[in-house]
């Protein structure tokens, strides 16, 4: 279980969060919805260590974790809105680069793990192609697989449907629900209320201050 207590964050003079509290239960899907500028993406970015947290406390499974270098913890795997796959690497290399370089996994172990994930996500035959040749939905699944390779505690998605055709929305819904079956804890930032209602255990509306 992830607990955020009294989190505050401001950009310059603009307060984004003031004494904000949130609990994310294990194995559940939490959606953060609300108008743009409300800070829902900022919250996800803070958990990934991409934005600093001014003050507050983060407790994971009962233990307080340091808030100033969250990127060094393996708390949140981040699936970017525009995927940010590495264009010069094949799908397989996108997946195995971090585990082999940052976690000391051998190439064989990493490849086995990557191929399992790709198979599960229906991408097995795309392992050796480069990202530019994939469709938006495929890129997103690769981005998810890449985030999952280093086994983060939680997966966070930033606007997972915004870069996709409307018909792909159902595909993303199924993917996220499938991950829930597998026991993953997930946080989804979206402005698509219908989408949020279809997938979420909890929906939290974040409004601009």
């Amino acid at each position, binding site marked *: 279980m992830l607990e955020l207590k009294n989190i505050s964050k401001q950009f310059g003079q603009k307060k984004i969060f003031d004494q904000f509290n949130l609990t994310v239960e294990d194995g559940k899907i939490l959606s953060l919805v609300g108008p743009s500028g409300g800070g829902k993406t900022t919250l996800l970015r803070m958990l990934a260590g991409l934005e600093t947290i001014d003050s507050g406390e983060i407790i994971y499974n009962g233990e307080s974790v340091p808030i100033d270098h969250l990127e060094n913890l393996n708390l949140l795997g981040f699936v*970017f809105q525009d995927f940010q796959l590495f*264009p010069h690497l094949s799908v397989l290399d996108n997946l195995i680069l971090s585990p082999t370089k940052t976690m000391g996994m051998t190439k064989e172990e990493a490849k086995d793990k990557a191929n399992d994930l790709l198979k599960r996500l229906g991408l097995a035959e795309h392992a050796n192609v480069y990202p530019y040749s994939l469709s938006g939905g495929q890129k997103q699944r690769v981005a998810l697989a890449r985030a999952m390779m280093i086994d983060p505690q939680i997966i966070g998605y930033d606007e997972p449907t915004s870069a996709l055709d409307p018909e792909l929305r159902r595909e993303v819904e199924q993917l996220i629900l499938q991950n829930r079956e597998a026991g993953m804890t997930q946080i989804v930032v979206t402005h698509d209320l219908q989408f949020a209602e279809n997938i979420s255990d909890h929906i939290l509306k974040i409004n601009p201050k």
Partner: protein
Amino acid sequence: MSYILQVLPSLLNGAIATLQVFCIVIILSIPLGAILAFLMQIRLKPLQWLLTLYVWVMRGTPLLLQLIFFYYVLPSVGIVFDRMPAAILAFTLNYAAYFAEIFRGGIEAIPKGQYEAAKVLKFSQLQTIRYIILPQVFKIVMPSVFNEIINLVKDSSLVYVLGVGDLLMASKIAANRDATLAPMFIAGAIYLILIGVVTVISKRAEKKFSYYR
């Protein structure tokens, strides 16, 4: 024809000096330029001023003058170079400034999201540069880098001011001795061949990097 064969050995000898300058400068100046470009990304004011000054001076003064400075002026403050090292030093520092600007453009063309993706995947800063940024920068800068490399083949003829016997110098000596311009045209042909080779290599390199978009 027999005249060509007669002057060719001395011209080829000169061409070897030209190639020496060319190869050593390429090997030194491209990595130096890349390192300088990454240093430019560090937000440390004194460092940025220093690099701006360096690029300004190197691009803002004639290379000929820089060659003269390294060979003729530095000895007066006790720093003495041989002809060849002086020439290579001047060329390397000059070309590194141009390469630094080219690489800076390439680095700045990489989206911020690539750095963020690297960060959440736990790559260190050096790993991010080595595995994610640099390979992409190479592809972006390739055409401009080869443009500079072609310039260098011809610019290398400036070493004559230091008395290094390069291709152009050899052709001038032969032309003066034999009272004919033929050696200079032969030299021109050799330059064309050298640049033809570089051009073929550049096309191959660009093709090699076209496996992704």
